């Protein structure tokens, strides 16, 4: 195994380190001197805890340009997606039982839709274009009188492709259809203005944006017809939509991370764009290398590349000490080719050779140069020992 200090972490789409300022804010809440009390308690200490949570909600709301009352705390984006999709489908099922999503969504979205199919809902699964982008005309064609919910992610976790959620949301709202966005890869990384966007439900998480794991949020727009049925029961917290003792230190961490993200977003984007472009320039001339997802429509923190006639598992090992992903992190134990890349039209072999490089605030230019060198030498090594294909 490679020593920790030798690792070059290029998997920021899977998770990010917690910003030291976030750690400081969280730690202050976890000790005797902090406001560790249960926020459901009515005594002074409990009320102080409530105030800290309210402050964090304001910080997150400020990042998203929305009202803090529109945010529900969850354990992460997976729970937010489940609450949004299952909760909205159940709440509106008397109006209709047709739902729409994309084949390239995260499992946290596709699995709840599959569960709803088993309950008798009808789901239309849209394919993207080869670029990874959804053709809004295909969505419009799929919308029906009984359609109740559309779910499309903002930034794809495997390819980084950005969907035009403004255009998609407009198409939904013209037909009074709820629009849910899985924004786990975009909140805190790209501008998200919920005052301006036609979005009803948005899922997000802290740990993709230098906050702690175990805390996320669901935005629920304050407009008629937008509501979700709860999935959990057991208390009156959060308007009974998501009961349970609020993890104040996690929430404060998310708030702090959101405020930091807001203050440096344009610098982050510039930094990531420079790194992504440098990396792609360094490998793009390798024979048979290709991008998965159109770079002009992509978040600059993610670059997904396939290469012809290379075995993916061997490539991953040959790339060590780079920490990169094949498919999504949630899918990395699975030897099946990525369903996201298959939906983009990639063959099994090309999908299996795909590596997702994702960059973050701590990534330096010398990390990129080492990554270029490792990728090129790994390809040369594996091609050097491979036999010719049988004619």
């Amino acid at each position: 195994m490679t020593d920790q200090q030798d690792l070059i972490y290029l998997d920021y789409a899977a998770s990010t380190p917690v910003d030291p300022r976030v750690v400081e804010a969280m730690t202050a809440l976890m000790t005797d001197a902090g406001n560790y009390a249960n926020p459901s308690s009515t005594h002074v200490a409990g009320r102080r805890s409530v105030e800290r949570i309210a402050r964090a909600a304001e910080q997150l709301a400020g990042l998203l340009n929305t009202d803090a009352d529109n945010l529900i705390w969850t354990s992460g984006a997976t729970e937010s997606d489940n609450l949004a999709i299952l909760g909205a489908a159940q709440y509106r099922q008397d109006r209709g039982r047709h739902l729409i999503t994309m084949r390239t969504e995260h499992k946290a979205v596709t699995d709840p839709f599959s569960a709803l199919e088993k309950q008798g809902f009808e789901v239309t699964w849209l394919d993207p274009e080869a670029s990874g982008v959804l053709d809004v005309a295909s969505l419009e064609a799929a919308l029906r009188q009984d359609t109740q919910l559309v779910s499309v992610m903002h930034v794809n976790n495997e390819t980084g492709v950005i969907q035009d959620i403004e255009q998609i949301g407009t198409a939904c709202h013209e037909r009074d259809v709820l629009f849910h966005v899985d924004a786990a890869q975009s909140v805190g990384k790209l501008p998200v203005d919920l005052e301006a966007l036609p979005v009803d439900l948005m899922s997000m998480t802290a740990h993709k944006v230098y906050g702690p794991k175990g805390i996320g949020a669901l935005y629920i727009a304050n407009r008629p017809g937008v509501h979700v049925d709860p999935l959990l029961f057991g208390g009156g917290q959060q308007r009974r939509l998501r009961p349970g003792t609020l993890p104040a230190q996690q929430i404060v961490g998310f708030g702090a991370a959101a405020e930091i993200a807001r203050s440096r977003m344009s610098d982050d984007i510039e930094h990531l764009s420079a790194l992504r472009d440098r990396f792609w320039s360094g490998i793009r001339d390798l024979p048979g290398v290709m991008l998965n997802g159109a770079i002009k429509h992509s978040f600059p923190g993610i670059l997904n590349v396939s290469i012809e006639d290379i075995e993916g598992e061997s490539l991953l090992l040959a790339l060590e000490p780079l920490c990169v992903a094949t498919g999504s992190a949630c899918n990395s134990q699975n030897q099946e080719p990525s369903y996201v890349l298959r939906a983009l039209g990639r063959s099994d072999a090309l999908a299996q050779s795909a590596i997702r490089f994702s960059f973050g605030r701590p990534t330096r230019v010398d990390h990129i140069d080492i990554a270029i060198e490792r990728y090129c030498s790994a390809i040369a090594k594996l091609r050097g020992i491979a036999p010719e294909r049988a004619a």
Partner: protein
Amino acid sequence: MSTDPYSANVRELFDAPAHAGCLEGAPSASAEDQGVRIRLCADVSQGEIRTLRFQAWGCPHVIAAAEAFCAGYERRPASALLEFSATDLMESLSVPVEKTGRILVIEDAVRSLGGVVRGASKPDE
């Protein structure tokens, strides 16, 4: 608990496959299945394997197993190729059971090579 899917042995053999390559004009055999491609070459003299080389396309266990085979069968009688079994390799490299099929492709290639070598060493009739 180790979370590393590869044993130290596999890592070492994969990192430095000293027997990767081919021997021009030497007897060779290939096998392809289970998403694995393997080609083996042998320089045999007086019934003894002098040099072995492999080319492989597959996962790290396949490459490590091919390297381990080549390293372990040089200086052995050519007839040993016909009796080769992948079981020992699987154990020594801690190959996960779900990859058995891939390692058996190597076994196929080795036995095929044994047949080629035996045929090549028979005097012309």
